[in-house]
């Protein structure tokens, strides 16, 4: 038996600015009280601060390097195309697997990436990486039918990069409402000692509506309806937790995020920069702006490096012996990467202003480097700018994301607060905690006899 029941409520991308500094638009009325009675940490996310791998870093206690997961997609050395990771790539036990192993009953909902579901001693509903509700997305397998009979097909995600904000808002509220109703059902009907519930809707609300919410945003705009969407999503979660609190009397409640969020200043076409620097050559000029970089577009005999975009950039060296048309000699590799990192750090903003860029090699970041890491990892201007991998733009500085409207970038700092109704854990601000350290806090709450 567990000492205490533990509920981990994961609010994807929730920053301290909202939860601790009270900029929640009035949405977190109940949770704010809970957090003020909690032990509060500023959570330092991993590198990269992205949903995959961040949640799995939290729930395994392993760095992205140890997990060998550096984002959603990876490339095998010598291959241009990417492969996508799923739950089967997670080689270390998660907190719920460890709890299962010890005979505790667990529940997992929405933790990326848990699709395809693995057996647990309890229940699991997979996350937004699930291809669709036609797939087997629960453990046990028949839980899917039980859920769908009561709530209809599961909604795993919404497409939020759209100018149809009314549609995005409707889809978002519908999805979050469904998740909350399913979770209320599972939490009150199933036996459990540990439940981990990640609500991705918070992150989607931030990306779609942050500039209508955060007055610090460079393109902040008050809107009668849209400015209320983020507080509305917060309040849905808030009211849900308050309603459930009667059944959670002795439960330790953890509120956590995987990373924070900040206004996006713009996007930077990293491959166009590499072209300008003479490190990448295309066979011909791309026909339209925003063209994805394809293998057949690159003049490999004259290309030393190329990059992927996203919330951070992964830069690959065209290394001889590893890549099919490699031109960088193995003995030059170390010096080449050092020099390239230096040049990447020196990238400046659109008006020539200095940026706080981070360019580093995986071996310098992690205690162990597994899987298929890039040669360099690049974060632009302390994450204010998003690296775009697409090409063909008239200017390498783009006012908007190359993948469609987006208001937010990820930030290094999220939240981690522990509420103990019996007051044995202590309250107040507890400083900074690394996301990979959370596992040991959770396991001590669950497994250590108190």
């Amino acid at each position, binding site marked *: 038996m567990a000492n205490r029941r533990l509920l981990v409520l994961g609010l994807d991308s929730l920053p301290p600015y909202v939860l601790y500094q009270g900029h929640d638009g009035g949405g977190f009325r109940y949770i704010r009280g809970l957090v003020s009675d909690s032990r509060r940490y500023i959570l330092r996310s991993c590198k990269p601060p992205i949903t995959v791998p961040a949640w799995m870093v939290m729930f395994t206690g392993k760095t992205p390097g140890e997990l060998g997961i550096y984002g959603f997609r990876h490339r095998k050395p010598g291959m241009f195309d990417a492969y996508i990771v799923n739950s089967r790539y997670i080689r270390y036990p998660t907190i719920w697997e460890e709890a299962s192993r010890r005979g505790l009953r667990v529940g997992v909902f929405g933790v990326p990436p848990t699709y395809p579901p693995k057996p647990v001693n309890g229940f699991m509903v997979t996350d937004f990486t699930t291809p669709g509700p036609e797939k087997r997305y629960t453990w046990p*397998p028949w839980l899917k039918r039980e859920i769908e009979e009561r709530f209809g097909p599961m909604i795993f995600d919404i497409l939020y990069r759209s100018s149809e904000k009314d549609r995005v808002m409707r889809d978002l509220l519908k999805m979050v409402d469904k998740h909350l109703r399913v979770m209320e059902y599972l939490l009150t009907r199933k036996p459990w000692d540990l439940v981990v519930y990640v609500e991705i809707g918070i992150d989607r609300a931030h990306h779609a509506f942050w500039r209508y919410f955060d007055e610090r945003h460079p393109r902040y705009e008050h809107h009668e309806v849209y400015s209320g969407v983020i507080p509305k999503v917060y309040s849905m979660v808030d009211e849900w937790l308050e309603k459930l609190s009667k059944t959670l009397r002795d439960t330790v409640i953890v509120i956590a995020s995987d990373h924070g969020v900040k206004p996006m200043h713009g996007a930077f076409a990293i491959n166009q920069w590499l072209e300008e620097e003479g490190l990448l050559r295309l066979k011909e000029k791309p026909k339209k702006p925003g063209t994805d970089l394809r293998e057949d577009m690159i003049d490999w005999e004259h290309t030393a490096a190329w990059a992927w975009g996203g919330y951070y950039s992964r830069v690959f060296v065209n290394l001889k012996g590893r890549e099919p048309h490699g031109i960088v000699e193995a003995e030059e590799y170390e010096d080449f990467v050092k020099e390239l990192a230096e040049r990447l750090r020196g990238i400046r903003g659109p008006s020539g202003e200095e940026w706080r860029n981070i360019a580093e090699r995986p071996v310098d970041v992690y205690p162990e480097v597994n899987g298929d890491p890039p040669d360099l990892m690049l974060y632009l201007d302390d994450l204010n700018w998003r690296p775009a991998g697409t090409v063909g733009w008239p200017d390498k500085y783009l006012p908007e994301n190359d993948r469609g409207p987006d208001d937010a970038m990820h930030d290094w700092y999220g939240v981690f607060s522990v509420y103990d109704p019996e007051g044995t854990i202590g309250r107040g601000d507890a400083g900074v905690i690394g996301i990979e350290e959370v596992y040991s806090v959770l396991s001590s709450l669950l497994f250590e006899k108190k």
Partner: protein
Amino acid sequence: MPGREERKHRYTTVSIPVTLYNRIKELIKDTGFTSVSSFVTYVLREVVADMEREKMESETISEEEKKRILERLKALGYL
């Protein structure tokens, strides 16, 4: 090639709690299942086959499905 001993032992024993055994026994009364063992074997076969299918699908996705996933991740801004 399985050894002689292995071929001889085509069944093995799995322990389940007695209360669960009794619940199953009650559940299968007047059904096509003649024993708890046959019911448990049936249920496990179903679950295991389902898991194996899902595992195989997740490990060998078609080019078209991969393209769809990549497009979706792009639309979500992760790539």
